[in-house]
């Protein structure tokens, strides 16, 4: 028999395959050097997805505007590199701080109301920022995007190369660092209160969990992580455009998180890998109409039930 304490300890203990996976991730840019660009992209999207998982999967807040924080981080990092200094790590930190502040500000908007209200408010914040980035063209370059961002070498030693290997390593390292931190967070008592809020908010309140402040804190943290992902994108591509705020980005993110499985740390990572490769393949077959197939996939997935996708053994067992 296993008591509750043991099962909690078990879930936080490192599995055998986890270090292997992490080492494999670090080796990837070296092994698949010619695909370093897409590996970089996957690492960034994975980090972004993990940040959404914090609020969607672990806390149960439906958000369609998570790209707001991603974009904020991207613009903050790009502007920092352009106007202050080109050091990537300082830029990354700056992007995180700005996105975290924005998240703290926005966390007031998600406290009240139904799912629809939250959906609209998060969506609205994303749209608002996109509009702002578009109109403040003296600062952000408007619809043309912010060009000419030159990055210095990472840690003063590793210069970004054209092939993108250094960029891929940089993104993977940052992603792994955040993955480690998030892993600690969700397995802590704090993380347990989050899942309690997700599963039954009323009951969580009754056993003395401060729901409002927990929601605010996790929303702020998730915003900071999303900002880190955005900063990585801006730094490794040397470019920030208003497309970082786009609605599609938030929608795609929710989709890939659902593919990978919500409320599971590696769900975002798995979803990012599958989604990016799928996007690459389908759009090379039909560049214009690939959204149709994504749409079809979504509809079918939702009809069948998303829990069953990540549990293949339930496919043929009839209804559970």
């Amino acid at each position: 028999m296993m008591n509750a304490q043991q099962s909690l300890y078990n879930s936080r203990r490192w599995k055998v395959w986890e270090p292997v996976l992490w080492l494999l991730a670090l080796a990837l840019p070296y092994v698949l050097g010619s695909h370093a660009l897409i590996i970089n992209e996957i690492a960034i999207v994975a980090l972004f997805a993990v940040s959404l998982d914090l609020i969607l999967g672990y806390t149960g807040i439906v958000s369609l505007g998570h790209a707001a924080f991603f974009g904020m981080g991207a613009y903050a990092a790009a502007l920092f590199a352009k106007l202050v200094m080109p050091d990537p790590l300082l830029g990354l930190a700056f992007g995180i701080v700005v996105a975290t502040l924005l998240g703290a500000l926005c966390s007031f908007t998600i406290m009240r109301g139904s799912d629809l209200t939250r959906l609209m408010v998060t969506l609205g914040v994303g749209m608002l920022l996109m509009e702002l980035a578009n109109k403040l063209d003296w600062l952000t370059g408007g619809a043309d995007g912010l060009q000419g961002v030159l990055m210095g070498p990472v840690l003063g030693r590793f210069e970004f190369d054209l092939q993108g290997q250094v960029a891929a390593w940089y993104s993977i390292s940052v992603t792994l660092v955040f993955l480690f931190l998030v892993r600690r967070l969700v397995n802590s008592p704090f993380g347990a209160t989050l899942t309690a809020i997700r599963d039954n908010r009323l009951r969580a309140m009754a056993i003395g969990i401060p729901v409002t402040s927990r929601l605010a804190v996790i929303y702020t943290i998730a915003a900071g992580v999303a900002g880190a992902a955005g900063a990585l994108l801006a730094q490794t591509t040397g470019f920030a455009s208003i497309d970082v705020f786009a609605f599609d980005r938030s929608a795609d993110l929710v989709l890939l998180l659902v593919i990978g499985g919500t409320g599971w740390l590696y769900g975002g990572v798995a979803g990012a890998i599958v989604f990016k490769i799928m996007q690459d393949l389908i759009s090379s077959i039909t560049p214009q109409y690939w959204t149709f197939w994504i749409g079809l996939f979504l509809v079918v997935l939702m009809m069948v039930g998303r829990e069953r996708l990540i549990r293949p053994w339930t496919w043929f067992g009839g209804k559970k």
Partner: protein
Amino acid sequence: MLTILFDGIAYGMLLFILAVGLAVTMGLMNFINLAHGAFAMVGGYITVLLMQRFDVPFLLCLPIAFVGVALLGAVLERTLYRPMYKKPHLDQVLFSIGLTFMAVAAMDYFMTSSQQIVQLPEWLKGRTELGDGALMLGMGHYRLFIIAVCAALTIALQYILAKTRFGSRLRASVDDQRVAAGLGINVNVVFLSTFAVGSGLAGLGGALGAEVMGMDPSFPLKNMVYFLIVVAVGGTSSITGPLLAALLLGIADVAGKYYIPTFGAFIVYALMIAILIWRPQGLFVRKGGKA
């Protein structure tokens, strides 16, 4: 000044017709349907096609768009939507986004991505001006027509909801589905017909709005946010709420774009967020109904 107010009202009325179906289905089934704009797009394209290929007069196109989209809505409700009612909101959102993506890509494939133009009949093209100076009121005949049609529809809807037997069944189902079913109301049929009429109204709105809002395959994505704003701000428990919200949005949007063109859309979103923080359930909530 008055002209802007007039255009705003016309736009708001149009938004109301487009969004009222969404408000009712959301209130009734607690289903977040982001694919509502796709129905409106289908209505718009039915009109465009009939007028361009078969020379059907504009006035005849409107009812055809309504009926066609209503049938489509009924079929989809029965086959695709019904299993989704019991799922969590996240599933519903993703499901309807998927439908929208499919509709957008399919329209792109069959109709090309260029904007379609609706040829209005002669008698709707003119413009009447009253008064002068700051109080000048310029009324485009087509906008006048939109206001007239939408006002008539609103009165009809209000009548159906408030006075008929079907209306009271519908209100009962919105308030409490289980009790309504227990009283012998066939909630499924109420759902089906409401969904069909709501979609049909969206189709009609799309047909009417094709000339004003432009009709191209990205229509559902571009305007979805506006429909959702109307519903979120207006609340889902009555039709006066969405009507007032739509008018407010229409006037704010037109006026914002006219007076401060650089920050037009900005104002709308900021206003929405402020209202939703202030009244999370929407501006007009009827007491007693289930939220």
